[in-house]
């Protein structure tokens, strides 16, 4: 089993769960200092030819692609070459070496927060995430590339997971956002939002690895509640600003490199971007195990 992006916090967690009953090979640019002994790690860039050696070395039964770069500070060109070109390479090897399973961790952000969104979007909702937030177009493209793989290589079971905001010790935008104190909100808006705990994502990937599973699945955690409720659970203070003011301040802070949140992220705290996870519950047999409170409070666990 091959995991890309194994050195991220989610990758490490997944590796620790999976290595108990199968052989795990990790691929990541970064090093994996405290890795369990039976995991072999190849410190390669997925865009390089060396990736092919990893495939050549042993027969790979499944590829889990977590190695998506989403660093808002990196350039669009970097994003594109890493996420799109790198992923294309990976797909090429998957088809060349006839890997029977491919799991891609996408995100429900590909749907994008919009005022006209239905409250719960199904897997066939259009992917409009890049409409107002062009920096994530490459992530939408990864999702679409993976979708095209269904037709290109039907003998490979491809699974695309689109989880809602993942919370936990991970360093992603939603977790970082809830770590702010005070938490920023937009005056006059308090959208319903869904979150899911990182360990539930690991569980969802485990389900996706079962033979016979294929398709696109929205993954959601506990019941949705308004944004203000999340802040209340954390006991944080709240700073609510009118949208126009918040936008100006964030733009300035962004150019001064004072924040990691680009301005379009503000739409996530204005509009709904929630998913219908019925398919995951029925077909994938996935149900979140971590409660709402535990999920939300987990953002403080990984602080350093």
């Amino acid at each position: 089993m091959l995991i890309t992006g194994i050195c991220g916090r989610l990758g490490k967690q997944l590796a620790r769960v999976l290595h108990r009953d199968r052989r795990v090979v990790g691929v990541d640019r970064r090093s994996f200092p405290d890795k369990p002994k039976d995991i072999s790690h190849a410190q390669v860039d997925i865009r390089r030819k060396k990736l092919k050696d990893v495939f050549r070395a042993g027969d790979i039964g499944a590829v889990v692609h977590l190695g998506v770069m989403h660093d808002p500070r990196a350039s669009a060109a970097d994003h594109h070459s890493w996420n799109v070109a790198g992923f294309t390479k990976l797909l090429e090897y998957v088809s060349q070496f006839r890997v029977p399973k491919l799991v891609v961790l996408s995100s429900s952000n590909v749907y994008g927060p919009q005022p006209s969104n239905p409250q719960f979007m199904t897997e066939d909702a259009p992917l409009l995430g890049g409409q107002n937030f062009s920096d994530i177009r490459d992530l939408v493209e990864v999702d679409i590339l993976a979708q095209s793989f269904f037709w290109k290589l039907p003998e490979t079971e491809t699974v695309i997971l689109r989880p809602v905001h993942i919370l936990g010790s991970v360093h992603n935008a939603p977790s970082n956002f809830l770590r702010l104190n005070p938490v920023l909100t937009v005056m006059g808006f308090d959208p319903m939002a869904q979150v899911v705990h990182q360990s539930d994502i690991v569980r969802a990937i485990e389900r996706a690895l079962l033979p016979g599973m294929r398709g696109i699945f929205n993954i959601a955690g506990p019941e949705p509640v308004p944004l203000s409720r999340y802040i209340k659970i954390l006991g944080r203070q709240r700073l609510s600003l009118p949208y126009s003011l918040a936008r100006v301040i964030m733009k300035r802070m962004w150019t001064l490199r004072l924040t990691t949140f680009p301005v379009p992220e503000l739409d996530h705290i204005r509009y709904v971007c929630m998913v219908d996870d019925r398919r995951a519950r029925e077909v994938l047999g996935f149900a979140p195990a971590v409660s709402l409170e535990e999920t939300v409070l987990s953002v403080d666990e990984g602080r350093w």
Partner: protein
Amino acid sequence: MASVPPYALRALARLDSAARGAPALLGWLFGSAEKAVDDALEKLLGETFEKRLSRVPLALGRSGVDPFGLDPQWTKYVVLMAATLHRKYFRTQVHGIEKVPPGRILLVANHSGQVPIDGAMIAAAMLMDAEPPRFVRAMLEKWAVSLPFVSLFFTRVGQVVGVPENATRLLEQGEALLVFPEGARGIAKTFDNRYKLAEFGLGFMRLAMETDTPIVPVAVVGGEEQYISVANVEGLARLLRMPVFPIIPQLFVPGGQLPLPTKYRLWFGEPMRFSGDPDDDDSVIEDKVWLVKQTIQSMLNRGLKERKHIFW
């Protein structure tokens, strides 16, 4: 993680929270105002709001909010306003509400009166006069959702964005959904067209067939006379990108900005069930829609005949 100067932000937040609710006086004022609201509601409902609420079938999660963001605690003030209009101002007479079946329903009504008070009256009747009481859900224009406060307020009192997926999901959740198939054409009728149904949209019928939901026809009598529109200036409406530009003379009279205190009469009809393919041709759907439209029109005609006076 960002290196935002935390002291600066925290100071701002403290200011923010101080402005929000620190002065004890304000808290006391709000406290007594809330008690006044509770008392007024209890008088109008004949029981406490909480007691009435406990009988409303709602899909609330553990957090006290439904999946669409409805928070019953928020609705208290809106309910008070609607209930006052319902009982005191328009003195609504409700007929046949016992025919409304439990479970999911589609309330289909005529639209009238320039301002959607008819919707509020139907909702008030469903909460105050129906047993078990129901919270009526309705659909919002998409642009309203992008407005601050407006979107928050309407979401909390149970309105949802007007997209087909939401309607289907609400009905699957067992809610009572109110639709006005006439849309803006209906509400903005000039006085000469009063109680003449405008063209019906077809969406509600497809929705009812798809989700196997009974349609409850509702006739609202009394709405057309609340604001009398004598003309529609089409050119101006086009210019201002409004669906209509009504001329309402009473608005120029002091006090005439309030709707005229007509007596509202709500007639609930027998539930109608339709089966068939929801994706059928328009012509097939139109026949079924025509049936609903005729039912409402004849209910309206009967209601008008039985009405002795507009104001009482």
